[in-house]
């Protein structure tokens, strides 16, 4: 019934979009804004494939109202890396073979971004705990966890290595 014009900051850009109150964030992204990198699967907050970040926190976009992102920062997989250069987390997934069918991957990458923003040096147990609500039916998780720890190391090295000057 009610329809709202909202202004989220979507992947760093101020965006205006009109949504019905009942439109989920996943529907808003995929249908209204054409951002189909967000994948919907269980629609019950269990699988994690639709994970996006709202103000840096992971949410299930299938079970979140689009209207509730008014004035907030929304990050989707389209906001991670560029066409020319993958984000360190994406590259770590490629390097570790952490992607097979790929359907869960956008959700995993965003969850890992949220994990590393909060805890830049997670233990294996901490990584497992943070990611235990993201389901992958292909890889068996080993490669994904390898990728997470590798991405963390790479980010640490990047910040800890002094710049070489001539």
């Amino acid at each position, binding site marked *: 019934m*009610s329809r709202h014009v909202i202004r989220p900051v979507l992947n760093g850009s101020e965006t205006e979009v009109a949504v019905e*109150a*009942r439109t989920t964030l996943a529907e808003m992204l995929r249908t209204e804004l054409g951002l189909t990198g967000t994948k919907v699967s269980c629609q019950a907050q269990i699988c994690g494939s639709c994970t996006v970040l709202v103000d840096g926190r*992971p949410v299930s976009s299938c*079970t*979140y*109202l689009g209207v509730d992102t008014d004035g907030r920062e929304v990050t989707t997989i389209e906001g991670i890396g560029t066409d020319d250069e993958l984000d360190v987390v994406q590259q770590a997934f490629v390097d570790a073979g952490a992607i097979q069918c790929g359907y869960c991957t956008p959700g995993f990458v965003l969850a890992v971004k949220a994990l590393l923003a909060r805890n830049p040096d997670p233990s294996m147990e901490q990584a497992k705990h*943070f990611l235990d*609500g*993201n389901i992958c039916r292909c890889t068996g998780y080993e490669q994904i966890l390898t990728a997470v720890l590798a991405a963390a190391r790479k980010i640490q090295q990047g910040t800890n290595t002094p710049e070489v000057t001539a």
Partner: protein
Amino acid sequence: MTIPAFDYQLAAGLEEALQALAEGATPIHGGTELLPAMELGLLAPERVVSLRAIPELRRCERDGDLLVLGAGLTHDDVATSPLVADHAPVLAEVANDVGNIRVRCTGTLGGNLAFAEPRSDVATVLLALGAGVRLAGVDGEREVPMREFVLGAYETDLRPGELIVAVLVPRQPGTAVYRKVVFSERPVVGVALAETGQGWRLVIGAVAMTPEILEVRRLDEIDPRAIAESLDVLADLGGSEEYKTHLTAVTIGRCVAAAGRQDP
């Protein structure tokens, strides 16, 4: 699955929210319980009022011996709060293991308790700690102990137009532990055991329609098997009655062992 159409209002303050509730609106905060129920067609409110912009629902402060937790705090807020970790560490620990990280980052304390899903980890541990809830409506506020607030599965003492505004948590007086068996987002059985000053309070959640609360003087009075067999255990997707009764006995036993290890 599509959510039925409704009118949405973002309340700027508590007064506006309570007025909307008095007029029959349904409150939403994280939506982790309400939206799935709407997607399944179990609920179809015509008017929904969002509580997410109300600062006082996000309070987290001491008031004498009580910790006052705003009902709009997410499980993740509770899990990461230094104040909660100091005041009632078992609550922080339980909050850190609710559902999954997305549920913890969106689902709120108040939403969890108002929905009164029998498999709530949070309700079980709050019962063990002797916590209460503060309810508000257009006509004023009242406080209700958790054990009187939970009336049944999905049934609470909330009256029409009332909202949980805060959860009141006494300081954890000594040892308190929570153990659960979980295969998916919600526990098959969740057991909390807390020192009370006079003895121990044992709360068994998730297996029956309502949590079972038992008071004992000493840990060795607890007979896990006899207690599990005395409960009205419900068979569901988590397992048969026999299986869940067994898990309940084992989980009570684990709580007693863990409490015995922590208690000097």
